[in-house]
């Protein structure tokens, strides 16, 4: 983990209100899929807190990293106006990663299923890429409300990808869980990695429970410090400790360890 001043390489619109931001990476450490960073969006006092975003790619040769973000409130609005050459105050890489768990599950023969939705798409593209480079052929399932929200340009043709839209305007009609239920081959021997809105995480968890598989999810929570010091970003967990810090103990958790409400 390091705080550094990065330079914007490119900001590009990739879908309705979705942007790909690439920037220079200064720390020596290589970020892994699922890790995140925090960005200070303004020098003014409002919006005050740094904003967390998961890495969506990293190129070790050019030391370039990127995130995919959605314009939601004031912080991301400011970010959506960045231009090449702008300076960015970044802290990262933060948290654990899907890769931490992947290492353990790789040696099983299970199909690696990566499920992404909404603002969770970035880290899952990175995870899929990481797997492919590691010689694993994952299945990437992306869920979107409608076609205009699909970041087509960000997909890698060499990765098996299924796109689901709620309204059927592209690909499979239905959500990602519907798709998994409709695909016989997926009911056994899969490991699921999911990042997306809460219902998607819950759905993947439930699917994994029913099919007796393992599922890893990346959680979101309001964060202040982002490094484990303030106890602000906790989530409820099953087991001895009632809470875990999303920023430090997560953001990736085994779904069976999360207390779902």
């Amino acid at each position, binding site marked *: *983990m390091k*705080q550094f001043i990065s330079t914007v390489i490119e900001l590009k619109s990739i879908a309705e209100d979705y942007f790909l931001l690439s920037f220079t990476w200064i720390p020596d450490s290589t970020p892994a899929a699922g890790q995140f960073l925090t960005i200070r969006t303004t020098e003014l006092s*409002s919006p005050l*807190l740094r904003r967390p975003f998961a890495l969506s790619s990293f190129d070790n040769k050019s030391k370039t990293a990127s995130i995919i973000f959605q314009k939601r409130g004031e912080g991301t609005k400011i970010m959506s106006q960045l231009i090449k050459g702008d300076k960015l105050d970044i802290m990262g890489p933060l948290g654990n990663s899907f890769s931490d768990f992947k290492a353990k599950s790789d040696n099983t023969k299970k199909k690696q299923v990566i499920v992404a939705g909404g603002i969770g798409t970035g880290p899952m593209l990175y995870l899929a890429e990481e797997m492919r480079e590691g010689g694993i052929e994952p299945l990437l399932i992306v869920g979107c409300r409608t076609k205009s929200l699909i970041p087509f340009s960000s997909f890698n043709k060499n990765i098996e990808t299924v796109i689901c839209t709620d309204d059927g305007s592209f690909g499979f009609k239905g959500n990602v869980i519907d798709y998994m239920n409709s695909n016989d081959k997926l009911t056994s021997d899969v490991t699921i990695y999911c990042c997306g809105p809460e219902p998607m995480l819950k759905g993947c968890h439930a699917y994994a429970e029913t099919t007796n598989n393992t599922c890893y999810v990346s959680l979101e929570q309001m964060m202040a410090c982002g*490094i484990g010091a303030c106890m*602000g970003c906790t989530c409820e967990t099953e087991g001895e400790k009632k809470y875990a810090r999303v920023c430090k103990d997560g953001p990736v958790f085994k779904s069976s360890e999360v207390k779902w409400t």
Partner: protein
Amino acid sequence: MDLKINIGNIQLPNPVGTASGTFGFGEEYGELLDLSQLGAIYTKALTPMPRDGNAVPRLVETPSGILNSIGLANPGIEKFLSDKVPFLETVKCPVILNVSGSTEADYKEVIERTDNLECIDAYEINISCPNVKHGGLAFGTDPIQVENLTGKLRKLTVKPLIVKLTPNVTDISVIAKAAEAGGADSISCINTVRGMVIDTKRKQSVIPAGISGLSGPAIRPVGVAAAYTVSRAVKIPVVGLGGIMSADDAIQYLLAGASAIQVGTGLFVDPLLPIKVLNGIQQYMKENQLEKISDFHTFIN
């Protein structure tokens, strides 16, 4: 130029510390800044037993501030001794343990069981957390209780006692004087301001606990007013905090009468802030030919 300040029988190398609860026990931030440059680390609150803390979410952003209800989540004394003390023993700056509890006995127990630790230089007695209730209001709102508690803790240790006050009182100078009368070596102020944010979509408080604690630049004027008021009410040194985001903000506190300051919420925005604040204070002292921190106190009365 002399940046040192005295609190009770100890000396802090400089006036810039990190506020309790925003810096954990220092390990995490140790990766980002050089702890040996700090005037002091004020640790996360410690209570006798471990505390899970309050329901989630615990944080929400407000205009120029944040509202939190952590609920004093902390490892408890046992885990503190086994997991945190080894690290604190390596830290080169003074360490001030923030002591909390629900009863008088809690405060006593924390001091009794940690007083022998060399790595702890002083205690900050947190009688002001809005997120833990003693019969509805924070401990620190009743001068008689404050004097009593301070007096009792005073007997347990020769280490300096810094009593941390809440701004959520009618007259903070009365509480400060009570702490002084009880034997406090210093007053720190302010803890967070009572506040609430409602989620109009879900029609409930964003933070399940309801009323929580407001911090950050939004409350800086409240903190400066409190530091000013308390400095005029007591003879012991005052530690000022609340919304410090720059050296200029810290200097406001020093001019208001504080002898030291803490950076809290500002750390979340910029972990290097304490160092920047310290540099800025030094530069200001040079430009204004101030030789020691008490020289700040000669302008406003």
